[in-house]
């Protein structure tokens, strides 16, 4: 029998080659992810900002004053509350709309493939484009007022969306729901389509109604998928930035629609309060990790 060359043998057997082949990836990961993250942690324990007049690596460690400051920061608290409200509103709505559409699409109808493709388009659009589109749509002389509210309620029914905090935040939520409901639809539809046909037929034979089949067959079977969809979308919604930045910039007035990501952006980019922005980011990251950990607990199955 012909023997494999030495080099091939070495490659097959040795662990060194395996480790060496991960080097490029390790290098990229370290410099793109871990090093900046370490710098962020370091800066959060300093009071450095670009306007300090010295380089960040010369910044003296100041301890935890930035973290203490964060716990007493009313603007951060309000940004957190607004972000939570945003997630609490858009996530269930996107879920319910996505579920409803997925159930509708389970049956066959003419043009189903075309409709499915069209439904995907909002998700494929850049956030900035969606934000700008909805920003223009909700202007006083925009289509929402001129084509919807004016014909229904007359000129007096036209609304100045971006001069009222609640309406402005509502417009942002509508934009988010429009863009991300298709994601929910896609995930849920994929799950529902994979439910074995025989289980549904068995339930039908036993006389179960369509609603009961959905509640007792479909949903329990795709529960892990639903949890994953909710976590992914929930985390994304918590990080919302682009559409708020484009549509309201945190206004009208003083930060009335400011969410956490926008606040951190303002801290670091507009105010150059870099070390404080790092401390706030770190706290948010820890909080998000804890919430995610709790959310995925139901998915963990103990293996005996």
């Amino acid at each position: 029998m012909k023997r494999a060359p030495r080099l091939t043998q070495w490659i097959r057997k040795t662990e060194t080659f395996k480790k060496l082949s991960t080097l490029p990836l390790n290098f990229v990961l370290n410099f793109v992810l871990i090093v900046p993250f370490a710098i962020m942690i370091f800066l959060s324990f300093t009071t450095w900002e670009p306007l300090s007049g010295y380089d960040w690596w010369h910044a003296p460690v100041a301890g935890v004053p930035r973290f203490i400051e964060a716990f007493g920061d009313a603007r951060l608290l309000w940004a957190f509350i607004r972000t939570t409200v945003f997630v609490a509103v858009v996530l269930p709505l996107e879920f319910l709309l996505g579920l409803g559409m997925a159930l509708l699409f389970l049956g066959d109808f003419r043009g189903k493939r075309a409709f499915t493709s069209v439904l995907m388009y909002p998700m494929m659009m850049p956030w900035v484009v969606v934000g700008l589109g909805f920003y223009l749509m909700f202007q006083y002389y925009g289509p929402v007022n001129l084509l919807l509210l004016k014909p229904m309620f007359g000129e007096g029914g036209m609304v100045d969306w971006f001069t009222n905090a609640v309406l402005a935040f509502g417009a942002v939520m509508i934009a988010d729901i429009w863009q991300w409901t298709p994601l929910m639809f896609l995930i849920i539809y994929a799950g529902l389509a994979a439910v074995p046909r025989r289980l549904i037929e068995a339930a039908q034979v036993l006389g179960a109604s369509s609603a009961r089949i959905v509640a007792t067959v479909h949903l329990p079977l795709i529960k892990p998928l639903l949890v994953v969809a909710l976590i992914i979308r929930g985390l994304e919604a918590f990080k919302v930035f682009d559409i708020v930045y484009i549509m309201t910039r945190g206004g009208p007035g003083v930060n009335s629609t400011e969410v956490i990501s926008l606040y951190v952006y303002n801290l670091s980019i507009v105010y150059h309060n870099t070390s404080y922005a790092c401390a706030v980011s770190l706290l948010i990251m820890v909080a998000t990790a804890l919430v995610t950990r709790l959310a995925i607990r139901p998915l963990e199955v103990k293996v005996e």
Partner: protein
Amino acid sequence: MSKPEEKKISRRTYLQVAGGTIVGLAVGGALGYLATPPKMVTTTETETYTLTAGPGAGVSDRAVAGAKQLVASGAVPAGATLKLLHVAGSKNNFEPFFAYWEAETGTKVEVVTLGGEPDVYTKAMAEATAKTGAFDIITIFSTWKGDVIESGLAKDLTDYYNKYNPEYGSQYPDTTVIEPLADYTTMYKGRRYAVDLDADVFTLTYRKDLLENPDYASQFRSKFGYDLKVPDTWEEVKDVSKFFNELNLKASDGEKVYGAYFYADPGWAAFTTWLCIFVSKGGILFSPTDMKAMINTQEGIDATQVMADLVPYMHPDALSMDWASLYKRYSEGKAVLTMAWPSLIKWAQDPSTSQVVGKSGSALAPGSRVTVGGKEILLKAANNPVNWIGVVSNYSKYPELGYLFWQWVVSPVIGADAVTRVGIMDIHRNCWFKPPYRAAFEKAYTPQFLDVFADCIAHSFPDLMIKGSSEYLDKLTKNINAACVKSKTPKAAVDDTAKDWEPITDRLGRNAQLEAWKSMIALYPADVQDVWKAKGYIS
């Protein structure tokens, strides 16, 4: 019908075909690359320069001679390239001149464009931290001057000014950048850190055809008891705006013609409209003794009240849309009074963008009646929001060459051609208002605008240009917008801003901020300083 037979391709065949294709492409590409003759780099002179010989030719001549000397001495290698960081979409003022600069000096300029104005700031501040030397020269808003200087990015250009003489100052009355513009856009704590590229002084723009209409004039007189005219004070602005708003005139598309459009949105409200009203009322932003915020004085409350009072007569976009909406709405004929940068008049005069061509007039910004030494005077002060300036990076390999390019491109001769092109730069040198340069500028701006604008510059005052100005103005502009959308009272808006400003000053260092603010006070027009003295704000 029988099922078509599946074509089976073995893994081996697939790998052979795929591998062969890749190798073929690679070899073919390499051979193609080697076979291609080297690219001929040719410069085609497509630009027509309309350079006018006139006063100040020495400014560009000295810049070119300086650049040549740098190359000849070996300080700068021949063919060296300057990287210019610049906002996207507005390269027209500079780019046509790169080939000319190269032909004159043997060095090149390459422009690196970014999306919007805030992106330039973000990138510049990132460069201040990273110190890569990726950009040699940068165009920024003068508002950010304090930040780019204090962060170490902007180089002190005082020595270059002395060496090459760009002809700034009263000793060069024919050619200088009009005072006080030259000083406040380029100086910081007594040193020159920038070259002025622009004059962004706000000018009142109005619908001349409506204000000169005899029917409206008689209606106005019977309603307000005085003649309809270009408003001199902010109180008159309110009357004129109210009058035209209530006429319910219709623009060509059937939408309402509003009385006014003044920036009141969360992005621009403070350092455009509000600051102009505030200063004209004799307000001062900070105390020159302890740097305490002084925006919540009676002047601050009154200025905010004026803005809130104007809101019912303004186009709704004024409260929420970005700056460009003003240009669009005014040019659609949907506002009677407005105030904006000089480029508005170019926009309103262009038939491709405007329905009010030939119907606009320009005037110095309205003022306020204030009492000085027991005598009432009309104080007018025009603000200069964001004025573009050119800075040189401290991390550039060729800082002197970078400075020389700035001096050259806005010199009286070259600048006369550069500035009249559509772009970010606007007229700012004395000589450009006079022959032989004036004809080109009249064509771009209209003669009436030129007559008014030199006066506007002379009455202008700078943006807040100290360290942290972005943060100070962000807090102020949001509060002013809050008062305009009625979510705060004018008093609460300025009180809250003052409260927000104190921790910023403490964080950035009260003494250092005070020093910077004191040097800024000296840059305000003399009549504004006189009012401050009369009020006891400064000594």
